[in-house]
C-alpha cells in the first residue's frame, strides 16, 4: 500500500518534471523558407468557385463586351517618358467629351486637362475595344470637374507637373524642360500664359480634392461639376471612334 503510493507519487513527480522541462523549453524558430507561387494555367480552377462566380459574371458580360472600336496597338502608361500615348488619349477624351457639356452649360471652353499617371489602371490592348476596356483603364467612379485658375495657381500646376518628373496626362498645355528639369517654356493653347486671364482646367473630382497631392486646384476662380464620369466619357468616345491610335507627342518634353 505504502509502496504503491510512493511509486505513484514519484511517477507524478517525474511527469511534472517532464512537463516543466518541456514548458520552459521555448519554441525555437529554426528555419524559414519563402517562395512565390505562380497562379497560371498549370493550376486547375476549383469548379465550385467558378460556379459561384458565374451568375455575377454573366450579368456583367452581357453589358460590357460588345466591340465599340479597334486599337491599332497596345498602349501602356509605361511607354513614354513625360507623355504617353494612352495618357494623351485620356486627357484628349476628357477635353473633347467634357467640353461638350461644359460649353453647353457655361459658354466657356476647357483650356487644359490634368489627370494623374497613377489613375491609368490598365493598358489598352491591341484589338477590339469595349466598355470593359474603359472599366479596366478607368475603374474609378471619378467625375470630371472644371476649375477656373489664374496666375499663381497655374504656376502651381506647372511646378507640380515638372517636379513630379512623371507622365501625368495633360492636354491643352505644353511644357518644355531642360535635362535638369528646369522649365524652359509653358504654353496654353500654343500661346504664352496670360497671368491675368482665367483658364479652365478639367480634372477629376479625386484630383480636385487634393488627390495625389495636387493642391493647386484650391483656391480657384470657380468650380463646375459636370456630373460626368471619366469612364463614361471614354465609352462615349469609343462609340463614335472606329480606330484608336494615340501617339506620344511634344506636350511635355525634355529639350
Amino acid at each position, binding site marked *: 500500500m505504502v509502496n504503491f503510493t510512493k511509486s505513484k507519487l514519484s511517477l507524478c513527480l517525474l511527469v511534472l518534471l517532464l512537463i516543466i522541462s518541456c514548458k520552459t523549453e521555448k519554441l525555437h524558430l529554426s528555419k*524559414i*523558407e519563402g517562395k512565390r507561387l505562380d497562379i497560371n494555367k498549370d*493550376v486547375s480552377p476549383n469548379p465550385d468557385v467558378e460556379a459561384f462566380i458565374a451568375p455575377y459574371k454573366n450579368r456583367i458580360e452581357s453589358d460590357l463586351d460588345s466591340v465599340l472600336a479597334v486599337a491599332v496597338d497596345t498602349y*501602356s502608361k509605361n511607354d513614354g517618358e513625360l507623355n504617353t500615348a494612352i495618357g494623351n488619349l485620356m486627357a484628349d477624351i476628357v477635353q473633347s467629351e467634357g467640353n461638350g457639356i461644359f460649353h453647353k452649360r457655361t459658354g466657356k471652353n476647357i483650356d487644359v486637362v490634368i489627370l494623374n499617371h497613377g489613375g491609368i489602371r490598365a493598358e489598352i*490592348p491591341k484589338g477590339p475595344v469595349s466598355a470593359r476596356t474603359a472599366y479596366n483603364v478607368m*475603374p474609378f467612379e471619378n467625375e470630371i470637374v472644371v476649375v477656373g485658375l489664374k496666375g499663381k495657381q497655374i504656376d502651381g500646376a506647372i511646378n507640380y507637373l515638372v517636379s513630379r518628373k512623371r507622365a501625368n496626362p495633360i492636354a491643352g498645355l505644353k511644357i518644355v524642360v531642360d535635362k535638369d528639369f528646369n522649365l524652359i517654356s509653358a504654353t496654353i493653347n500654343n500661346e504664352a500664359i496670360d497671368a491675368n486671364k482665367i483658364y479652365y482646367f478639367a480634372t477629376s473630382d479625386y484630383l480636385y480634392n487634393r488627390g495625389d497631392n495636387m493642391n493647386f486646384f484650391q483656391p480657384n476662380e470657380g468650380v463646375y461639376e459636370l456630373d460626368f464620369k471619366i469612364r463614361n466619357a471614354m465609352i462615349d468616345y469609343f462609340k463614335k471612334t472606329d480606330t484608336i491610335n494615340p501617339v506620344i507627342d511634344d506636350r511635355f518634353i525634355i529639350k
Partner: protein
Amino acid sequence: MRRRDFIQKVSAGTTALAAAGGFGLQSFTSKPTKITILHTNDVHSHIDTFGPDEGRNANKGGVARRASLIESIRKQNPNTLLLDAGDIFQGTPYFNYYGGELEFKLMSKLKYDLATIGNHDFDNGIEGLYAQLPHAEFGFVSANYDFSNTIMDTHVKPYQVFKKDGVKIGVFGLGIELYGLVGKKLYKETKYLDPIEITQEMTRILKLEKRCDLIICLSHLGYNYRNNPDKVSDLKLAEATKDIDLIIGGHTHTFLPKPTIVKNLDGKNILVNQVGCYGLYLGQIDFYFDTDKNKTANGTSIIV
C-alpha cells in the same frame, strides 16, 4: 501533434516548481512544427483569369485557380494562415456592379483568416466598406487607423492572435496615410497614426504580453519609395523596429520574385514580401519551429 497543447494546459499552475526543470529529455524532441503563411495583396477585384490578349498578365491569375492552390497547400499542412494586405476592392466591373460583395464572399470561401485595409477599400466610402462586412467571414486588422469616430468602430482590431499546433502567431495591421491619397469625404473621421510608433506598441504587446512565437505585420504602407526616402515604407519599418518576423506588404504593386531579407533594429534578419497585384501570384512563407535545445545555438536559417 496535439501534445504541446496538452502540455501547456497541464503545466498551468506548476510554475512554483519551475526551478526543478532542466531535464535532458531527448525523447521529447520530434520533427519540427511547420507553420505556413500564404498571402496576397492588391487583388483589386480581379476575380477572373486575365484574357489571352491582356498583355503581360495574359492567362494569369483567377480566384478559382487560387482556391485550388490554397486547398492543396492546406491539405499538405493544416497549420496554414491565409492573409491579405489590402486593396481588395476596385479594379474590375465586379466592384462597380456589386460593391465588393463578391470579393468578400470569395475570400470567405477560400477561408482567408485575416486582412488589412488598403486605401482603395475606402473607394465606396467608409459606409461602402461597412456595408460589405456581413459578407466577410474573416477579420480585419489595422493598428494605425483609429476608427473610433466612424461607423467601422469595433469592426477592425489592431491585431489578432492565432494558435496553430501550439505555436502562437500574432498578426497586426498597418495602413497608409489617407490624407492626399483618398478623399476626406470617403474616409471621414478615420485617423492615421504613426506606423513606427504603433509598431513598437504592437510588438511589445504581442511579444511580451501575448507571448507570440511569431509576429507578422500585414502592411499596406508600400514596399519602398526611392524618390521619397522620408516616406515610411515596409523596408524602413523593418529597419526601424524589432521583434517582427515577417512584413507582408502591399500598395506599391511590387513584384518581388522572392522575399527581401532586411536587418532590423536588433541586427536580426527578417523578411519583407509582396506579390505584385491582381492575384497573379500567391506568397508562401514556411516557418519551422522546434524545441530541440541543441539547435537553439545555431540561430535561424533563411532559405529564399
